[in-house]
């Protein structure tokens, strides 16, 4: 039964999220309810077997003292006792097994669900969300839920079962004993709940200091050159020692709480037990109970009182599980991006004609990022977007794969409104090469084939890599195409990453291309190679270039100069040169640079 079962898809998330806390957690276990019920039944059986074991022991002792056993009755009685232990053991095992089976499966499904949900949340959601926070919720909060299913839910059930069955058994021995034995129970429960609540606060403060200490250490290590440059070792030692001591002090406080709680609660529980036990002993002497009853009672009362302390802890932990569930459901409530609604898919594929009609776009209300943008281009044309940071270039290209949708106006692709196409289909037709592309810590081959949804031969991969001028670089790595990218393998330079992304896009073979042509962080030769690779990539594709250099702009069929979200100038290179404006200013740069440089050199020679 080690293979996990069930798929996350059958989770009815709306139902889970709309239910009350406990019911939500119950719905989350969907598919494992039977297992959980089995776990519960065995919990009861285990409690019953344990109680019965002591009853059997009592009867056995009375028999031994009294008329004695005849023949093999003694062995049978002993075996009966052993059988109860074994029944108890098997039942405990079954309930723990079923509970952990449920807990692990439920958690695994929730993890998968969350992973998938998070990657399908909208672009806007991810722009806002903090990675660390998302991660924290998807890992440690989910683990808190796992512990709820595996430990708290079962633990509370176990204690309640034991309590009820034992109380019932004691009652059957003597109602009076049952009454006097539970006096302390509410007190212990309340005391332990208060204690564990306080403890968890103190523990948090201890953990916080641990984090401070870790940060201190990390900053010291990453700033080791500064420490050495100012010879501040003694200062650093003192700083760390202060933080270290603070952690020690908080640990001391935590420890003091433990040192008081355990002995005191021991004392209270033991007081109850001694009182009950003495009463029972007197009853035996008075003839109201047998010695066997006394032994039984003595064992049952221990199981009645001592687990209550733990119940306090479990209840406090459960409230933490509810908090965690709240944090997880905040993520789950956020709507996923709809990838597949709208079904228009031209049979012959798209050509790549793009038209913007009076497009307005804003991330937040009243803060327009694009204002009344209109232009049209033919399939296969190159459109250069120029403008300073924040002028709207990036926002414009983000509209094409429908990472965001327009606020007003419309975008037409081959004459059809973009919203008619499903997001999934659109994205399959659009390739993006960013300035500093994100690569995954897989092999280089995996990164190149990352966007292709079919089997790719090694020849194809190499062909793409050659065209992207990265093949030779890859062969120089120790494991060639199997070399891992990132911490466990090679660290690629910005230019190399960009070429891997170019190879990746070549394999996808999209009709529309979005490029960030900044290549400033590479040397001349590499820059040439990247240029050539980009030229190959752009051939026959409608290309939107966020342009940083003259060469790509000059070759463009349409140049859009953006200023504060609006198209300030638009036209071809020749057209724009003939009108006054920003464009003409840029174009004259090279000639100006040459003359400035000459002046500079001359000035040196004259000096």
């Amino acid at each position: 039964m080690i293979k996990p079962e069930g798929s996350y898809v059958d989770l009815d998330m709306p139902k889970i999220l709309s239910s009350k806390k406990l019911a939500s957690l119950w719905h989350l276990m969907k598919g494992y309810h039977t297992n959980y019920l089995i776990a519960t039944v065995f919990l009861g059986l285990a409690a019953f077997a344990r109680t019965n074991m002591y009853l059997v022991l009592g009867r056995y002792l009375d028999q031994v003292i009294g008329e004695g056993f005849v023949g093999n009755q003694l062995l049978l009685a002993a075996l009966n006792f052993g059988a109860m232990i074994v029944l108890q053991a098997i039942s405990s095992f079954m309930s723990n097994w079923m509970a952990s089976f449920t807990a692990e499966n439920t958690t695994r499904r929730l993890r998968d669900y969350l992973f998938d949900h998070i990657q399908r949340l909208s672009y806007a959601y991810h722009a806002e969300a903090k990675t660390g926070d998302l991660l924290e919720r998807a890992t440690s909060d989910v683990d808190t839920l796992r512990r709820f299913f595996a430990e708290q839910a079962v633990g509370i059930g176990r204690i309640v079962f034991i309590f009820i069955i034992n109380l019932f058994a004691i009652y059957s021995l003597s109602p009076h004993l049952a009454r006097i034995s539970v006096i302390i129970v509410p007190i212990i429960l309340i005391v332990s709940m208060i204690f564990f609540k306080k403890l968890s606060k103190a523990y948090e403060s201890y953990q916080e200091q641990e984090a401070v200490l870790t940060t201190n250490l990390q900053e010291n290590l990453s700033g080791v050159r500064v420490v050495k440059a100012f010879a501040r070792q003694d200062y650093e030692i003192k700083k760390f020692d202060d933080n270290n001591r603070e952690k020690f002090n908080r640990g001391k406080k935590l420890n003091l709480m433990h040192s008081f709680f355990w002995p005191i609660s021991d004392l209270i529980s033991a007081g109850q037990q001694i009182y009950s036990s003495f009463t029972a002993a007197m009853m035996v002497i008075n003839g109201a109970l047998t010695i066997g009853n006394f032994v039984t009672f003595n064992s049952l009362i221990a199981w009645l009182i001592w687990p209550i302390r733990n119940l306090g802890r479990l209840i406090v932990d459960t409230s933490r599980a509810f908090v965690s569930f709240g944090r997880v459901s905040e993520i789950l409530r956020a709507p996923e991006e709809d990838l597949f609604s709208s079904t228009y898919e031209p049979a012959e594929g798209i050509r790549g004609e793009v038209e913007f009609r009076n497009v307005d776009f804003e991330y937040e209300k009243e803060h327009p990022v694009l204002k009344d943008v209109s232009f049209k281009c033919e399939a296969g044309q190159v459109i250069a977007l120029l403008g300073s940071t924040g002028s709207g270039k990036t926002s414009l290209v983000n509209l094409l794969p429908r990472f965001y949708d327009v606020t007003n106006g419309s975008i037409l692709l081959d004459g059809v409104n973009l919203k008619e196409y499903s997001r999934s289909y659109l994205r399959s037709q659009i390739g993006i090469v960013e300035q500093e592309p994100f690569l995954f810590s897989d092999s280089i081959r995996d990164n190149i084939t990352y966007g292709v949804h079919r089997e790719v031969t090694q020849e194809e991969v190499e062909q793409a890599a050659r065209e992207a001028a990265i093949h030779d670089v890859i062969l120089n790595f120790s494991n060639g195409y199997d070399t891992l990218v990132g911490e466990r393998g090679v660290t690629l330079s910005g230019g190399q990453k960009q070429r891997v992304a170019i190879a990746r896009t070549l394999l996808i073979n999209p009709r529309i291309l979005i490029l960030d042509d900044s290549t400033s962080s590479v040397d001349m030769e590499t820059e040439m190679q990247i240029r050539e690779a980009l030229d190959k990539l752009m051939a026959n594709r409608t290309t939107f270039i966020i342009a940083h250099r003259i060469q790509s702009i000059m070759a463009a069929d349409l140049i859009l100069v953006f200023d504060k979200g609006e198209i300030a100038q638009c036209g071809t290179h020749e057209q724009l040169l003939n009108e006054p404006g920003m464009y003409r200013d840029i174009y004259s740069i090279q000639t100006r640079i040459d003359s400035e440089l000459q002046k500079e050199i001359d000035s040196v020679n004259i000096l």
Partner: protein
Amino acid sequence: MSTFYDESEYDDNVTSQGPVLRRLLKVLKPHWKTMLFAMIGIALVSFLDAYFTILNKRIIDEGIAESNISTLVRLFSIYASIVLAQSFGFFLFIYLIGLQGERVRYDLRKALFNHIQKLSLSYFSKTPLGWIMSRVTSDTEKMADLLTWGIIDTTWAITNIIFASIYMFTIEPKLALIVVLSLPLMIIVSFKFRVNIYRHYRQSRKANSKMTASLNENITGVRVVKALRREDKNLKAFEVLSTEMFRESYRAAFLSAIYLPTIQTISAISLVLVLWQGGLMVSGTTLTVGGLQAFVSYIMMILWPIQDLARVYAEMQNAVASSERVFSLLDTKPAIVNRENTLPPTSLVGDVIFENVSFHYEDGEPVIRNLNFQVKQGQTVALVGPTGGGKTTTVNLLCRFYEPTSGRILIAGHDYLEYDLQNIQSRIGVVLQTPHLFSGSIRENLRYGNLEASDEQVEKAAKLASAYDFITSFEHGFDQNVGEGGNLLSVGQKQLISIARALLAEPDIFVMDEATSSVDTLTEALIQKGMHQLMSGRTSFIIAHRLSTIKSADQIFVIEDGQIAESGDHKSLIQQRGIYYNLYTKQFRHDLETKFDPFIDAGTEANTA
């Protein structure tokens, strides 16, 4: 560095446990009295635990069976007093041992941190930051746990088994033999289970860190995931990881679920035998009812010390491995240490001379070859050249972060090996390319340059570095919090603060690695001004990227392949029309392109000659 440092990459195969264990026990040496006290205390508690059963036996046999109320009252009074005394004992030794644990953690962390401060830069360039961090954080925890609760639990468990066995033999040797013979089986089974559970638990931790890393990557790369429609495939890949996590975690849980029931079942065998044979004895009156009852209690309770033993045993191997790593860090010798008979602390004002200096990190791969130059007191030197040419190594040698493998460096007339290391490093001011600030206020960061500086001095330095205006514009001024690593400030602001910090230190020699990242024009001008303040009157070495810095230098060294390829001032080098000329004109073009292009994105223009 990695946030998800994979701890479980290290296996726990310790070469030989003996020496490590002996050394581990030495950690306790300063606290041996407390430990001894606690161990005696726990042995006493353990004795009383075993004695309770005897007391119960006597309550049944001498009190109840004899219907002797006064004996009954007396026995219950003894019982109550022992409980009271034991609670007090519990309090004492939970307190002592817990405190002990905190103290050992504190001591270990302190020893490690203090030792780390002594290590040379070369150690940090070869050792991942995460590795060092794990030694100080998690390994010390494991060691402290073993040294406190590990020892205490073991003591309790062993004495408890021994006391219980002795009592059983005094009650009835034949029955006791049955129980004692079953012990080895229970102990072996327990150990096997515990070791396996612990192994799967560790595997699940490993799987968990892989899973977290994958999730992290998917969130940071979500733009690419969406653009390339990788959702389905990524989910499949994640499912592999989450299934692995499930498998290990579930196996650990399954083994835990079956573990206790298994040893309970084994104990059931001895219980049945005891009840059977014991029943016969009671009928034959060689055994009392209380005695028989005591046996049942002992057998049931002996499962606890056995479980404790097994748990400590399973965790011990891991803790010993942790200790070995911690000790190996403590044993690492700093590569650079003071020579004997160093000069007393003194100023470093004077010429700087490199005499045939060569240096390599690895044998056969020279980084600096036969470097010779002389810099007069107060001159500014600009180091230029390609990345990897040796500029940074040159200044690292000057700061004595590394020492030459051959040749000498003379500062103010002495071989710098004659100076005290601290003396050199505190008299040379360094401003790094990516300024590193510490969490805390701006004032605290500035004072890093001079711990004794008064508020006036701090403000004066800030003014000289042109940082005063932006600092006072913050809500809390100099007390503004800079965030972790200074990340609440902009790059330019961090640079200005690091310049002010260096000014406050009033170094004799100034070393700067000029930043390549771009800042706005105004901040750039402020930085230049601050640098001039630092350079004036001081011998300065600048790894230069700004043309204005390079041009104004007294000497320019073009460093290529660990050698000085060209040297001279700006004018003579331009006239040579060599490497420098090319570097300069290229950088000049680039700077102008940046300057003239109104569309260029901030941050993309970073480039160096």
